[in-house]
């Protein structure tokens, strides 16, 4: 038994060094960079938690157990606290990288302002992380928060986890882009879905859907792990659909157009991949079918259809794929097909959930119809479209109209724009990219200006 307390000391010392490093790293970054207020709050949480962890480690060693079970339990406790810090380790660097020069602050402000108009989210905050992956993520804060509560049973003086925080990650390479970052709306949809406990609300429908299809064995006869796994697939696919429709409700077709852009980059839009369901995602063909239905029903599709872009055609082509062609290869057709059938029976319920969440929000399609053509005209003349003159009067356009009109301009009208640029070399890839980037900057500036001109407020 002599070796055990020394082992405990080593464990504690090793964890202490790890925590001190992370604390110092955060302090150094905060001193040298500027962050949005919600990131600052999370940095403070980390700092306070680090202080409490160090105090806890000393206490564990000072009050080392002498019995075999007591020591075992103490070492497991240290191992558990270490894993919590291992988890936080994964958040800290992406958080520290996301200083204000590296994130699309005007778009984040707009997103936050819109999110706060959704019932039950008036006080929420969004923390942005920069991810090394070329994809967008959302971190379930409900579970993180629960974990932090559990941690307080071990570290009673640990700070409470900041409330009503959405954690989203964007690829570090896209930090300053406007258009692809529209996908953040989908990620925030995950936060909304979780906060409103939508999975629990869907569960009766999920069970009913699974019981209504012919699986290789009756659903009710399956063991609990298998039942949960099947339910988990339907809930995950429903959640992804919900997030797509949530994003469209807030930001309009720009979300679908930006999705095409990203999925194309990830090579997800070619058959058979576009027809495949995966563990967490429905097939892209299904997702775009649901998006197109929503855009048509709300009038967005017609309003944004001119000029028609290659992306519009792509969305319609994907949406027209027959549902019978969807597959879930991971489990094979005889299980995958009825599982997909069960999921398709949930779609109306998912639409209702989105309507319950966003139904009261003001539709933005009218503003787009009103301001879209003028915004595009301003962009054609290389002018930031934050104050428009229409019929002799000045207007500050709706920022959602700016995002959609400028994205459509970027997709459809760059050729006309380029012809106005002296010395522009047709077919030059770098030149084309520069021009597209410039349009994004003007649109971003217009959103920032309109935030000031329409509603003086605070970001973050």
């Amino acid at each position: 038994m002599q070796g055990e307390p020394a082992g405990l000391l080593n464990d504690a010392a090793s964890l202490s060094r790890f925590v001190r490093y992370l604390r110092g790293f955060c302090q150094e970054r905060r001193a040298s960079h500027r962050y949005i207020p919600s990131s600052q709050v999370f940095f403070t949480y980390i700092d306070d938690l680090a202080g409490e962890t160090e105090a806890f480690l000393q206490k564990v060693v000072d009050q080392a157990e002498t019995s075999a079970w007591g020591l075992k339990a103490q070492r497991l406790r240290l191992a558990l606290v270490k894993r919590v810090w291992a988890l936080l380790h994964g958040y800290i660097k992406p958080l520290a990288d996301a200083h204000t020069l590296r994130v699309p602050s005007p778009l984040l402000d707009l997103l936050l302002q819109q999110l706060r108009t959704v019932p039950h989210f008036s006080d929420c905050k969004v923390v942005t992380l920069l991810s090394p992956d070329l994809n967008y993520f959302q971190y379930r804060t409900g579970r993180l928060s629960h974990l932090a509560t559990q941690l307080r049973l071990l570290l009673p003086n640990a700070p409470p986890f900041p409330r009503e925080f959405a954690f989203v990650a964007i690829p570090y390479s896209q930090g300053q882009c406007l258009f692809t970052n529209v996908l953040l709306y989908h990620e925030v949809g995950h936060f909304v879905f979780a906060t409103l406990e939508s999975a629990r609300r869907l569960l009766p429908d999920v069970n009913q859907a699974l019981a209504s299809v012919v699986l290789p064995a009756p659903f009710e006869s399956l063991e609990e792990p298998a039942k949960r796994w099947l339910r988990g697939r339907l809930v995950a696919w429903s959640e992804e659909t919900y997030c797509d429709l949530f994003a469209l409700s807030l930001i309009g077709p720009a979300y679908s157009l930006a999705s095409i852009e990203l999925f194309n980059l990830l090579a997800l839009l070619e058959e058979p991949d576009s027809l495949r369901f995966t563990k967490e995602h429905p097939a892209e063909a299904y997702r775009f079918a649901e998006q197109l239905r929503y855009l048509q029903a709300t009038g967005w599709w017609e309003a944004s259809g001119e000029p028609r872009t290659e992306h519009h055609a792509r969305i319609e082509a994907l949406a027209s794929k027959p549902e019978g062609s969807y597959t879930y290869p991971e489990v094979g057709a005889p299980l995958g097909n009825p599982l997909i059938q069960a999921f398709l029976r949930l779609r109306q319920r998912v639409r209702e959930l989105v309507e319950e969440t966003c139904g009261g929000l003001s539709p933005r399609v009218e503003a787009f119809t009103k301001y879209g053509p003028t915004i595009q005209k301003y962009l054609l003349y290389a002018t930031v479209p934050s104050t428009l003159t229409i019929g002799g009067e000045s207007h500050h356009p709706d920022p959602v109209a700016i995002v959609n009109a400028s994205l459509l301009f970027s997709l459809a009208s760059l050729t006309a724009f380029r012809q106005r640029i002296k010395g522009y070399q047709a077919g030059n890839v770098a030149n084309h990219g520069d021009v597209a980037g410039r349009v994004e900057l003007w649109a971003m500036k217009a959103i920032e200006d309109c935030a000031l001109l329409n509603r003086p407020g605070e970001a973050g």
Partner: protein
Amino acid sequence: MLSGTEARIRYLTVAFFAQRVLDALVASAEHGDDAGLKPALELAIQELKTAIGSGSDDYQEGSPRAFSDYEQVRTLDEVRNRAEVQQMIQALEKLAEDLDGGVPAGRRQLDEAIEFFCHLESRALRNFDQPTEALPRGIHELCKASQRGSSMTPRP
């Protein structure tokens, strides 16, 4: 999409649950301190029943259960089979009953329970370190049945 840390958080939730019960059991076994034992036993019984499907309440986002997700149930499955978990539930119920009747907890029963929760926590921590993506046993069987079925009755 959801981040890759999602499954790892699920494993930590299991580990925290096990640690909470473990602390109460060790306090009773080593120090004769039963103050936290009753609520810990009640928690353990409730969660383990949920895990084997006799008290299901999935998807509690705000206060997720220890065994609300597939990965969590699988972690328990890796430590003990369903019958053994059922036995553990009975043993914990007996401990709780004795406690209510003023009977001191038996050392052997406490030791068995401590061992069980130590294994569970260790397994959860290991899965946190090395998350795996395996399909559950029941699904494997369904897939196999599917393949047999599909070879006999091809889709039109």
